[in-house]
């Protein structure tokens, strides 16, 4: 991995941002009045109820959705469209089914025109980083859900992004795999520090992973509270039963408690409204 230069900064600045989805009379504001600064290499978790617009905000950071108002910049440059410097991992993997695992990981370098031998060697390094060196020649459909997400992470990190955007990446995995993936992610992040914005509705997950948790309100989503997390790293599983952790968890639970008569909303995606009939 010494071949790739370490990513430059990775400072995110959002000011007065609002995002609208839908068209015509059906259009509505998903998030509004978002003011936020994220320091380089900070691990930030966005926590909120389903449909609150946290994934929508992530989609805007990735450049897949535009802002209705306000501004959004990475290292001083406005975000305009998707770019490998802002890598995104979705809840369900988006590996190309027709490419072997190794070719999926080498996809970004291929798009940059890196010669085949070089990009495959680099892809092997990143597969080893996520513990899947032995699965290089398989097709994605031959892997388990957790392994597919690990390949997805390797495929994004090989581009050495300044920002890693994750949309409930472990939300579809079973509980045990999920815990394992959280530890793996922290381990990788320690080795290749980047700014991480991690969307989740799992309080334990947010508190275990983050340097900072942003709790969002129900739609239209706003940031209710900005909670710094000072738990020392490296973090172990014992943390989740520590008194400080439990106290913060109670605070998050109170913030997220649904108000009376508040309907639970369908999940939004970083690509906008869920498509009818789409999985």
């Amino acid at each position, binding site marked *: 991995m010494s071949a790739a230069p370490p990513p430059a900064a990775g400072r995110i600045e959002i000011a007065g941002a609002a995002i609208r989805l839908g068209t015509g009379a059906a259009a509505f504001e998903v998030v509004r009045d978002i003011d936020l600064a994220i320091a380089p290499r900070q691990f930030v978790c966005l926590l909120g109820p389903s449909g609150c617009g946290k994934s929508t905000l992530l989609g805007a950071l990735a*450049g897949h959705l535009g802002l209705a108002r306000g501004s959004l910049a990475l290292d001083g440059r406005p975000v305009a469209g*998707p*770019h490998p410097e802002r*890598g995104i991992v979705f809840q369900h993997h*988006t590996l*190309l089914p*027709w490419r072997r695992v190794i070719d999926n990981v080498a996809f970004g370098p291929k798009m940059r025109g890196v010669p085949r031998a070089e990009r495959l060697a680099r892809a092997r390094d990143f597969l080893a980083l996520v513990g899947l060196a032995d699965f290089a020649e398989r097709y994605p459909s031959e892997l388990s859900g957790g*392994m597919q997400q690990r390949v997805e992470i390797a*495929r994004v990190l090989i581009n050495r992004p300044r920002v890693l955007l994750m949309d409930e990446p472990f939300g579809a995995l079973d509980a045990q795999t999920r815990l394992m993936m959280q530890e793996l992610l922290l381990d990788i992040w320690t080795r290749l520090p980047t700014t991480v914005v991690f969307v989740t509705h799992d309080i334990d997950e947010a508190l275990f992973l983050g340097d900072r948790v942003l709790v969002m309100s129900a739609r239209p989503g706003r940031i209710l509270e900005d909670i710094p997390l000072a738990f020392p790293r490296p973090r172990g599983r014992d943390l989740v039963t520590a008194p400080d952790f439990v106290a913060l968890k109670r605070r998050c639970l109170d913030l997220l408690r649904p108000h009376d008569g508040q309907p639970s909303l369908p999940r939004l995606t970083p690509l906008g409204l869920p498509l009818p009939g*789409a999985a």
Partner: protein
Amino acid sequence: MSAGALEAPGATLAARPDAKERRRDGRDGHARLPLRRLAIRAGALGLGLLAWHLAASQKVDLGLVTFGNVPAPAEVARAAWSLAQSPKLGAHVGASLARVLGGFLGALALGIALGLSIGRSRLAGDLLLPPLEVLRPIPAVAWIPLAILMFPSSEASMVFITFTGALFPILLNTVHGAEAASPRLVASARSLGAGRAAILREVVIPAALPSIVTGAAIGMGTAWFCLVTAEMISGQYGIGYFTWESYTLQNYDDIVVGMLLIGLLGMGSSVAVRALGRLAMPWTRGGRA
């Protein structure tokens, strides 16, 4: 965290049933039918042959339809044998294969190109679909006069008529496949740095490939379907010409020989198209049933 913890997930998951093994099983299951089912299928062909023999030899007359002038299997077999001995067989089959293949390959190239543009661009769809929908219901036989007027040689006209037969199944299946390319895969490829051309090459075309192969297999069949029509123009060779000529000469045995030959060649080439398609899509042979 230690390196050991990194290894652990891979190790536990490697204990799952070996995916390669599953793949091999899958392929075997596809290729080799159990003996009993093979026997049933062979028996069905035999029964069909027997029914034909009885109907033709007894000159069954059902009023609405009569088998009085239909040649019996034995007569057809005799006619087939004499055709097989004749040096003309190779010329007939060769001429037909060249025409069908020419029309098919032309339809494949144009059908995929148009299908991808229609599937990926609303403007291309609005521009191309209305005229294509008007042309689509026109049967091959209706094209004969124009084909003769439009093309310099009768050979080119015949290739064109098989082309019209193959084009629409390929085109419509390609449109369907290109539209089905997942917006999630497209978005994620864009985030990884793919531009428009790369999205088409790396995402849209592979995603559409199963549909394209299905369209090609159907198109291959319809190209053979149009062969007799096409070879009505022919002055000399071709299975379709042979069949049509046998009718005008009242060689009823040879008509059936020609019909069966077209059926077999059409079936064989559709199977070949599907086999080539499977070779081109190794990822569909995996565990993802």
